[in-house]
């Protein structure tokens, strides 16, 4: 059970591969560490480290203009950085697939994470994103598959939200 519960990032990676994703933009994030490693190790995927998340919204638009599928990995705080750039995806109906790890909800130690974390869902919905939340390892693949379909099949913004409960709390003292 433990092994299975911990391997959801690998299954998420396989879902991206099945979905034909060729470019992955990311701002480094502990919750996505395993998925980022898998993307970096894959010869068919171009991993693009970003300085800020809205770069990834523009990257995904450019990828689609050129006929490729992209995904954007970020932490919940990154959603706030993206809001104006979402206009690009909405106005032009660019597919935008986002995988978002949550902070500021379950057992959060750092209060500075709470203001943005607490409004991720409504902000994404205001931006007309389809939002699929995974609370447990078993929900991850289903949520990601629906998001892949919505993003690339429907040319929409689609977000998978990975709950903090799924990721586990950040260890502050070692």
């Amino acid at each position, binding site marked *: 059970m433990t092994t299975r519960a911990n391997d959801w990032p690998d299954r998420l990676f396989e879902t991206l591969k099945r979905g034909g994703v*060729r*470019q992955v933009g990311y701002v480094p994030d502990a919750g996505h560490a395993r998925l980022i490693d898998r993307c970096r190790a894959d010869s068919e995927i*171009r991993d*693009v*480290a*970003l*300085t*800020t998340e*809205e*770069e*990834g*919204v*523009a*990257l*995904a*638009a*450019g*990828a*689609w*203009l*050129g*006929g*490729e599928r*992209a995904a954007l990995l970020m932490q919940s705080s990154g959603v706030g950085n993206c809001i*104006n*750039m979402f*206009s*690009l995806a909405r*106005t*032009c*109906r*660019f597919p935008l697939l986002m995988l978002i790890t949550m902070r500021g909800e379950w057992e959060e130690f750092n209060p500075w994470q709470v203001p943005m974390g607490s409004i991720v869902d409504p902000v994404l919905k205001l931006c007309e994103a389809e939002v699929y939340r995974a609370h447990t390892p078993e929900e991850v693949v289903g949520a990601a598959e629906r998001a892949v379909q919505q993003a690339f099949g429907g040319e929409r913004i689609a977000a998978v939200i990975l709950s903090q409960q799924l990721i586990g709390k950040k260890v502050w003292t070692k």
Partner: protein
Amino acid sequence: MRLERRAAMATLLANRGDDLLLIPGLGSTAWDAAAAGDDDRNFYLWGAMGGAAMIGLGLALAQAKRRIAVITGDGEMLMGLGSLATIGIQRPPNLAVIVFDNGVYGETGMQPSHTQSGVDLIDVAGACGIGTCLDVRDEGALADLARRLKHLSETLFARVLIAAEEPPRVLPLRDGVALKERFRTAIGIKP
């Protein structure tokens, strides 16, 4: 001496070739590109300020056999300075980022931009690891840039010093979905 923006754009796009894909940044560079002649392989930005270079990066990675030119203004580039760092570590050989720098925000009333007060975009691009960074201040340097654009072999950054002027607006198509679809169709991507 500063170059005239419409003439500079026309020089860069003359005999552009079927494989040159253009991302004009929002505002004056989009009007300049439209004035040089509309083309289905132009994806004009009417928004997404700060995003032009990154759209170019995603496109360059997806279309390795085509040349990609991002031509944008200094204000637009300043909003996305981080993207130069991102491009600096990716360095696709088929991407050129060209900044028309007039030192002002022309669309909003000619307020001074940071470049007028000492921020040097060439230094920034060079410090980010972009190998070829060109300072274009006269017709000869512009002609050289146009030649290099025809045969891109490494990521190129160029600052083109242009005069702060406001030629009559030439407005391109502004339906984003239509711009996207005609661009993809023009380069042979199936829906």
